[in-house]
């Protein structure tokens, strides 16, 4: 005759067995004194355990009203939603940064940022202008401050990040790095108003897209740096406009690239430096026959080809400015 195992009697007394198991056990117990004794011992052990554990009870207290719990839960749910929204926002920023970085890498690998000169002077540029980090950071800046830039009624500019990437891909990476100019400490170049300067036309601050359309994609700029300001002065009839594009380095410094008729650009530079209207002739560019490089007295560099002149101003070492202007020249020549 099979007696009932101890654990089954525990389960039986704890009502942890199925109805059929209970019937089976009860029918056995009815005719087995040994198992009845075992059952009574287990019942006593069970009661004893309960009595011992009952000593380990906290002082009796009244539960907090359920409405209080409900209010706390409502707050918790709302906080959780906010966390989810924040997480989604952060994820989108990370995705945008990753995308910008990838796009920058693609642009680099396609040679979009290579200088055409191959001059050793390009080396300092790499040190002073970490293009890839800027490309990675810019989308984050864009997402962080779009509303403010727009609500201020400021112009919206677009950073020409991967201008030389295949046209089909370009729209996907043209995230506009809108940076409210009021938040930047712009360098102190003064764009003269009409009348102050012997140049025709009005200076207009434009969006990147608008300026690109108006100038036929001829805006002077350094690829990979976020654009913070575009200013254009229409030329005389049959004359090219004068264009000034301000871009920001990762260090926060702003550099400006200027392109236009040689006389206008040189006048502009002269007015800025308050020095001799004719910039000092620094050298001729051996890699570019027919071009003359000018170095200003305080952080400006210009390069003249025929009647056109491009210039860069910014608080950078002369060799960096030189490398940048060579790159700029190569980019404009390739158009």
């Amino acid at each position: 005759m099979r007696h009932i195992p101890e654990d089954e009697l525990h389960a039986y007394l704890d009502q942890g067995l199925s109805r059929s198991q209970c019937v089976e056990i009860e029918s056995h117990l009815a005719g087995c004194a040994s198992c009845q004794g075992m059952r009574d011992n287990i019942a006593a052990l069970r009661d004893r355990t309960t009595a011992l554990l009952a000593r380990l009870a906290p002082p009796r207290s009244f539960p907090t009203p359920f409405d209080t719990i409900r209010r706390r839960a409502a707050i918790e749910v709302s906080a959780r939603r906010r966390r989810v929204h924040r997480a989604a926002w952060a994820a989108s920023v990370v995705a945008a940064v990753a995308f910008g970085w990838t796009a920058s890498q693609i642009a680099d690998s396609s040679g979009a940022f290579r200088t055409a000169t191959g001059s050793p002077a390009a080396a300092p540029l790499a040190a002073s202008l970490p293009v890839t980090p800027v490309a990675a950071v810019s989308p984050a800046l864009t997402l962080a401050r779009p509303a403010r830039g727009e609500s201020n009624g400021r112009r919206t500019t677009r950073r020409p990040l991967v201008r030389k990437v295949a046209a089909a891909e370009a729209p996907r990476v043209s995230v506009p790095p809108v940076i409210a100019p009021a938040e930047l400490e712009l360098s102190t170049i003064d764009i003269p108003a009409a009348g102050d300067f012997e140049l025709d036309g009005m200076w207009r601050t434009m969006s990147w897209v608008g300026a690109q359309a108006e100038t036929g994609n001829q805006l002077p700029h350094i690829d990979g740096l976020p654009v913070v300001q575009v200013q254009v002065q229409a030329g005389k009839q049959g004359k090219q406009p004068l264009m000034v594009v301000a871009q920001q380095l990762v260090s926060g410094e702003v550099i400006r690239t200027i392109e236009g008729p040689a006389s206008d650009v040189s006048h502009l530079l002269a007015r800025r430096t308050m020095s001799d209207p004719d910039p000092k002739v620094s050298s001729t560019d051996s890699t570019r026959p027919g071009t003359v490089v000018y170095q200003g007295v305080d952080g400006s560099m210009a390069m003249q080809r025929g009647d056109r002149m491009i210039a860069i101003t910014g608080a950078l070492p002369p060799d960096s400015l030189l490398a940048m202007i060579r790159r700029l020249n190569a980019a404009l020549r390739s158009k």
Partner: protein
Amino acid sequence: MTDDLEQLYQSTYTAVVRFLYRKVWDAERAEDLAQEVFVRALAHRPEKPRAWVFAVAANLARDEARAAVRRKRHLTLLKADPIAQPTIEPAADTLVEHDERVASVQEALNTLTPRDREILLLWDAGLSYPEIASQTGLAVGAVGTTLARARRRLVEAHDRQNPNKGTHAAHS
């Protein structure tokens, strides 16, 4: 669902507090954690709220124990620092305040393995065998075996510490 949770709160709150108290040994903290459990239940709306409530309570108690360990380490560091020593709080040594009878059961409970202790406390909180099984990962058939062992060991450990009282209690 909310009404169900309210009913569960009314019927289970005390058991949840007791379950937590036996893990954190601090009545106020146990009540705070119990309220947190029901706040989470309202926020998550679990399908099986009763089992869920005890599962979350167990997790919170576990987190609390880890935090207590960290506090203890910090306390050790502070004790080594004679300047910081005056800022030491009395810590969780409130066990001293318990009377002897309570302490003896507590010590007996601490002699059980964590698994046996967990299952014994869940059973005492009123969970069914299937609920205990689903929460602990045991087979339902193994719950009875574990409970049988846990009960026996608890009583034996208690009687070892209090031979006269234990014998008397066993016969009473």
